[in-house]
């Protein structure tokens, strides 16, 4: 389901098996227990649908706080997709049906934002080296969830790199810049915590060199 990583608007997602509700995958930067919600509510929704003779299930939507979870039957699974509260579930369902996500117009990102994203990717690469990249990608997702709430729907980890899934709105450039700065700070603090200040400093220095 890696295609879900590329769809703008999806903050995080979980896939569970329809047969037994076991969790197959949870990805993205959501702070909510998406797997549990998807597993429990897909089962509850199926029972309610049968009881009320509702026909074929199209979707279940749960609204909480500023987001909503849209649960869809997909082959032998249920997908639970977290999107912003105001978004229409039908819209995200239609997007899933689009054949090739890559056919969309190119993403245009202001230089200062693309530079920060590049810096974050270099930090993750440098801190994770060859062996620990997954751990640093997890930390990156965590920081997006905790510090980048406003930007999470249109930026995320795609194929192992932080990337914009669609062009950021011009009026929100400052918000994006600030959130990305927090993420850089978070990653550097984590590096100091995990590998000591001299090692962390050396790796940050290596990133600075690469960015010149």
């Amino acid at each position, binding site marked *: 389901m890696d295609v879900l990583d590329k769809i703008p608007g999806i903050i995080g997602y979980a896939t569970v098996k329809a047969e037994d509700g076991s969790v197959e995958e949870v990805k993205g930067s959501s*702070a909510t227990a998406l797997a549990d919600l998807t597993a429990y509510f897909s089962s509850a929704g199926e029972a309610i649908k049968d009881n009320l003779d509702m026909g074929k299930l199209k979707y279940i939507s749960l609204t909480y706080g500023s987001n909503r979870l849209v649960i869809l039957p997909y082959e032998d699974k249920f997908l639970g997709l977290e999107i912003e509260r105001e978004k229409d579930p039908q819209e995200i369902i239609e997007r899933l049906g689009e054949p090739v996500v890559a056919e969309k117009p190119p993403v245009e990102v202001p230089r200062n934002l693309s530079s920060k994203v590049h810096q974050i990717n270099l930090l993750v690469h440098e801190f994770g080296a060859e062996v620990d990249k997954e751990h640093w990608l997890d930390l990156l997702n965590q920081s997006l969830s905790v510090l980048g709430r406003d930007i999470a729907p249109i930026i995320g980890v795609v194929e192992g790199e932080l990337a914009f899934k669609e062009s950021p709105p011009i009026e929100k450039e400052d918000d994006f810049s600030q959130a990305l700065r927090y993420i850089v700070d978070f990653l550097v603090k984590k590096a100091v915590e995990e590998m000591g200040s001299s090692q962390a400093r050396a790796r940050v220095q290596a990133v600075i060199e690469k960015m010149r």
Partner: protein
Amino acid sequence: MDKDALNNVAARGLPMPFSVSKTRATLVSDAAAVYKEQIGQMALVVFETISTLGEVKIERIEIVGDKRGIIMDLHGEGLIGTIFEPAEGAVPPSYWNLLKELRTKPIAAVVPSRRMALVDAAILEKIKTILQDYVGDFTDRIYQNQMKNQGINVEELHAEDVRRLILALAKATSMIVGRSKGRELSKKLTELVK
């Protein structure tokens, strides 16, 4: 709320309104009478599923099939909702507006719940001060994000909202400074609401 209130919103465009309290008192409009038993069973499934999950405060549920759909607005005392026949596109906003209007009327057979108690918003400043000791420069950002994520309304702050916020802040703090610190923060913040 009584049956007349449900029939009234039915006359104004809500197809088959109903309400179910947490004590399982089920009220249905005339249009939904044929589904009364199923609505009671459905509400039981919803309440049990939500109590299993605990932490997330679910406010609205939509379950949409190709023949029929059901939407529900949940609050401290129970749920109100309607069955409808789905058309193309989103659930009509007018349905949600009419449900919101119904929500202002007390649900039948309600037992007063803890949810009703209002809390002095000054507690939020205390929470923020303690949070600062754990996440330093990230305090404002984490606090604001979690306030938004949890949909906290400062003007109408309930004990349940504060507990939910504390859980969310502790979880976020765990991600930033580790689980033991997150637990420690949770303990300190929980002291504030005891």
